[in-house]
């Protein structure tokens, strides 16, 4: 701790003056700051915690230790998904031990004073820090959205550091908290792609997949997209980018707040340019599927959690028709609580709240092939579920579900 310049107050907390939960949290925050080379800590205005998802008993024990030590968050804090759907308790299979420990973990985080939002799209559930605000967020898609679309400032806080930052209201002063580290160093020019593709929802997870795989933790300024891109597209882009690589921030010129112009995104500095070709984008699209034909067993939608707009689009595309296979729609509990989704459920949709199908056992464990419009589901499906994956647009997913066989529009990609 001696190498990090802690304030007298921070030092006092680390030594236990405000109890063992805050002391352990301050040590974790300071130790992480030390290994990242941060000169000091800064105060944060809010936190979003990803550590509340059960991966094994150790995470439950950690949260319960903080709760037993009377830990309490110092700043407004939202919770990412847990491993249970508490609105539909039968949704999650899992054995008794899994359910017990996952539930204990979720309760411990609530005891710490976190808001039980249980969503990976907290930014669509009202948690929207202002441009330039320092915050401490976890979960890769939430971090990418927070930095890129809201223009608030966070690093990619891993599980445990997120709650530690929330308990002490501090984070290491380094990385994306500093304006100079937020400038784009690579320009990704999409103008060589067809205008129709650039204006199609199905393009954005593919672009994100390319960005994550090729650009990784570098910061890109994407040019050539129609200005004023909607949040759901930017959310899909960021989620795919942050699953395919360590992307914490990207700029879309004309759409994201730190990139009204290319010069603003690069902060007037130099940047190399990559011109995207249709071949590069087709290769990224192919990476998202592990199957291209055969039977489809189910559809998985909502990673990140479906918004009101995406739910309406699903309803419009389904047009009152029945699905011949389960269509899992993962979404926020506040959206489920305030909307009437019975028409979609009657059509064969299975609404999942508080969690999602790649983080906890919901799908039949028989294996098979799932179809999705989410880059993130496509990325994690094979390893986490043992399912093959076919990536397609939301319209492709709906038509496949209605007809009971794989249908995918290819014209845009040629």
């Amino acid at each position, binding site marked *: 701790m001696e190498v990090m310049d802690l304030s007298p107050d921070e030092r006092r907390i680390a030594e236990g003056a405000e109890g063992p939960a805050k002391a352990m949290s301050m040590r*974790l925050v300071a130790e992480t700051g030390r290994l990242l080379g941060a000169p000091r800590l800064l105060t944060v205005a809010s936190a979003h915690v990803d550590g509340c*998802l059960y*991966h094994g008993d150790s*995470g439950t*024990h950690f949260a319960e230790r903080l709760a037993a030590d009377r830990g309490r968050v110092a700043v407004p804090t939202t919770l990412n998904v847990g491993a249970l759907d508490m609105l539909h308790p039968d949704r999650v299979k899992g054995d008794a031990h899994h359910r017990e420990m996952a539930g204990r973990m979720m309760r411990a985080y609530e005891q710490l004073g976190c808001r039980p939002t249980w969503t990976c799209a907290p930014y669509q559930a009202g948690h929207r820090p202002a441009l330039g605000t320092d915050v401490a967020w976890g979960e890769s898609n939430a971090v990418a959205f927070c930095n890129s679309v809201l223009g608030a400032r966070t690093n*990619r806080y891993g599980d445990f550091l997120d709650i530690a930052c929330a308990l002490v209201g501090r984070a290491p002063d380094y990385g994306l908290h500093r304006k100079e580290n937020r400038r784009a160093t690579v320009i990704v020019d999409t103008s060589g792609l067809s205008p129709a593709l650039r204006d199609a929802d199905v393009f954005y997870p593919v672009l994100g997949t390319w960005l994550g795989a090729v650009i990784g933790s570098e910061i890109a300024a994407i040019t050539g997209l129609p200005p004023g891109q909607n949040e759901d597209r930017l959310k899909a882009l960021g989620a795919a980018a942050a*699953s*395919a*690589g360590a992307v914490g921030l990207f700029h879309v010129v004309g759409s994201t707040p730190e990139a009204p112009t290319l010069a603003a995104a690069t902060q007037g500095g130099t940047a190399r340019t990559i011109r995207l070709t249709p071949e590069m984008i087709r290769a990224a699209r192919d990476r998202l599927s592990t199957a291209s034909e055969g039977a489809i067993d189910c559809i998985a939608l909502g990673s990140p959690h479906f918004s009101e707009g995406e739910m309406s689009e699903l309803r419009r595309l389904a047009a009152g028709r029945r699905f011949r296979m389960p269509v899992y729609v993962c979404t926020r509990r506040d959206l489920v609580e305030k909307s009437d989704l019975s028409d979609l459920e009657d059509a064969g949709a299975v609404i999942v709240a508080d969690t999602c199908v790649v983080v906890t056992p919901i799908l039949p464990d028989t294996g098979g092939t799932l179809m999705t419009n989410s880059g993130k589901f496509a990325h994690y499906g094979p390893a986490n579920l043992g399912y093959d994956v076919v990536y397609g647009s939301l319209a492709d997913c709906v038509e496949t579900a209605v007809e009971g066989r794989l249908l995918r529009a290819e014209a845009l990609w040629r």
Partner: protein
Amino acid sequence: MTALSGEMLVAGKGTGTILRVDHALSFWGGVDPKTARITDPRHPRHNECLTGRVVALAELRGSSSSSAVLLELIHAKIAPAAILLRDTDAILALGALVAREMGYGDLAMLKMSRDDFALLVEGRHAHVEGPRVVLD
């Protein structure tokens, strides 16, 4: 015998043969916390088991839950003997830091220079202690 020195991210010691992972790996969604095996079928080291190995990891990617998976491996006593990184990764280090706070044990984690990282070849025996790595 070759003696190398790295930047100590988390103090500890361990001995084992090197498992070299050049392709970017996410612990969450890439490593099974129950078996310590690489589960991502698209990863070139698919099915390799991390337990007891000195894992040389060129690049981490993706999930911020990788710290939770590493903590679980340490708690279940199926963790790597040590982890040698080419770049500092705060998310992975956090799993080891929390393990220490929780009294589960110490997992050595070092950041190596690019030149030294290149010497960490698959199957070579390595002893890691503090900032030092000794290759047989």
